[in-house]
């Protein structure tokens, strides 16, 4: 009696450590359970995977486009400069040093008034008069969105006669950047909701169809996680396969964007393709598993 009592107490209360071979066999059994569940889901598998692939294609396409737009914006932003025209008595080097200390200023280039005059005389026929042009500074800013604040900081300097920059272009680049970034975030949210909803409903159907079997497993002492993990893996596998199929249309989008970059001679974003693929697999698998988890929590009483 004492031996039976000890056996029960030990088995119920304590975690009995298992050797790696036993753990491996459990992993194998769980994998087989997952594959059996998928086999039982039948033709519905194709519908689920196709739908997830379509959703992830939209996300992948937009994310890849966003990266390209960012790269275009960055290149255009790089060519944006503020032209600062100094008063006649101002020392260009002193002013340039002062402007360099302003936040977000990346580079200041001095264009001496003699150079400007020579350039002008080369372009148009000017009578031989005294050089009326001031020294000019070309100020380059780190990011297009900072150009306005740098402009305002320079404007207050007393030695500045006049200033100019492509204000409208800078604003448009900034707006385009914001629109694309916001759209990408919105699409991620939509992808999350749709994927989780689809997987949630599918796993609910699987649970319903296996209700009796799960009940028997539960009564026979099959561990809760042994019942749950195959269902979570099923959801994750749908996400994985959806992402894998989405790579086909994504490749087409990728090629189109590469052609656009080549046409405008603007280099494509570095590692963009890899980033998009990783993001797609990450979202597919995590939302797939998340959808299953929510369904299990709601519909599986173990």
């Amino acid at each position, binding site marked *: *009696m004492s031996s*039976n*009592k*000890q*056996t*029960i*107490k030990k*088995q*119920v*209360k304590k975690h009995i450590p*298992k050797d790696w*071979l*036993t*753990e*491996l*066999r*459990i992993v194998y*059994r769980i994998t087989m359970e997952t594959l059996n569940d998928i086999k039982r889901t039948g033709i519905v598998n194709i519908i689920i995977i196709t739908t997830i692939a379509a959703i992830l294609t939209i996300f992948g396409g937009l994310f890849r486009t966003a990266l390209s737009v960012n790269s275009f914006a960055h290149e255009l932003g790089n060519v944006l400069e503020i032209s600062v025209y100094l008063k006649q008595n101002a020392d260009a080097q002193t002013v340039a040093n002062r402007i360099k200390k302003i936040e977000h200023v990346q580079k200041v280039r001095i264009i001496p008034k003699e150079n400007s005059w020579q350039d002008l005389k080369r372009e148009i026929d000017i009578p031989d008069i005294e050089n009326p042009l001031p020294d000019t500074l070309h100020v380059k800013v780190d990011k297009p969105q900072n150009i306005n604040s740098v402009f305002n900081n320079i404007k207050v300097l007393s030695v500045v006669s006049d200033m100019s920059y492509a204000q409208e272009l800078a604003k448009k680049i900034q707006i385009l950047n914001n629109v694309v970034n916001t759209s990408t975030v919105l699409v991620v949210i939509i992808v999350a909701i749709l994927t989780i909803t689809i997987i949630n409903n599918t796993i609910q159907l699987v649970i319903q169809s296996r209700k009796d*079997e799960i*009940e*028997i*497993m*539960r*009564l*026979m*002492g*099959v*561990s*809760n996680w*042994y019942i749950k993990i195959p269902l979570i893996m099923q959801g994750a596998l749908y996400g994985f396969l959806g992402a894998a199929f989405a790579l086909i249309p994504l490749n087409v989008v990728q090629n189109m964007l590469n052609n656009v970059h080549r046409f405008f001679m603007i280099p494509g974003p570095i590692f963009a393709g890899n980033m998009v693929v990783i993001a797609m697999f990450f979202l597919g698998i995590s939302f797939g598993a998340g959808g299953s988890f929510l369904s299990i929590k709601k519909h599986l009483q173990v």
Partner: protein
Amino acid sequence: MIQLRSITKKYKNNYALRNVNLDILSGEFVFVVGASGAGKSTLMKLLYKEETPSSGTVMIGGINIANLPSDKVPNLRRCMGIVFQDYKLLQNQSVYDNVAYVIRTLGISTKEINARVLGALKVVGLSDKIKAKPTELSGGEQQRVSIARAIVNGPPLLIADEPTGNLDPKNSMEVMQILDQINQRGITVIVSTHDSAMVDYFRKRVITLENGEVVRDIQAGTYEQQ
């Protein structure tokens, strides 16, 4: 092995069990008898933690399972074999797979699973039916598969809730004899039944429930003993 102290189970305003106190020793064979609604099934469900008592303690192997956290319940159930009136077999799986199902989840080697399953099927006399599906078996055979599944993990305790409820007298006798043989191997067997013929034939300890209360507890008793 099992101690029930002041067990009460209440569903809304109805008492399924009232102040039940019991001691069942290791290696005993116990019949729990009573009319429908007497509380037999509730008592059985308390033993495998399908139900939790409203008050009182259920000690099995030194553990109060009334307080057992839900994540430990599968561990408890693997320490006991459970047999149901409706067999609860997986209809799409063979006899072999039904018996092997739970021990496969424990990561046991195929060789050991094979040995255990064939051993359990030998005990219940179904060694020649390992490939059959439950739908191809008689009720008695299905119940024997269910008993094989219950003993395959070598539990010290076997709980059978109305195991002969769906069987004819001949099959009932076969099933009871198998349970008796299992008990003779040292396994504690608790059988709830209203099959008076079986109870009278086997002359084991009989616990009688009426309206949720233990009204008789007799060693080597019969169904209607006064």
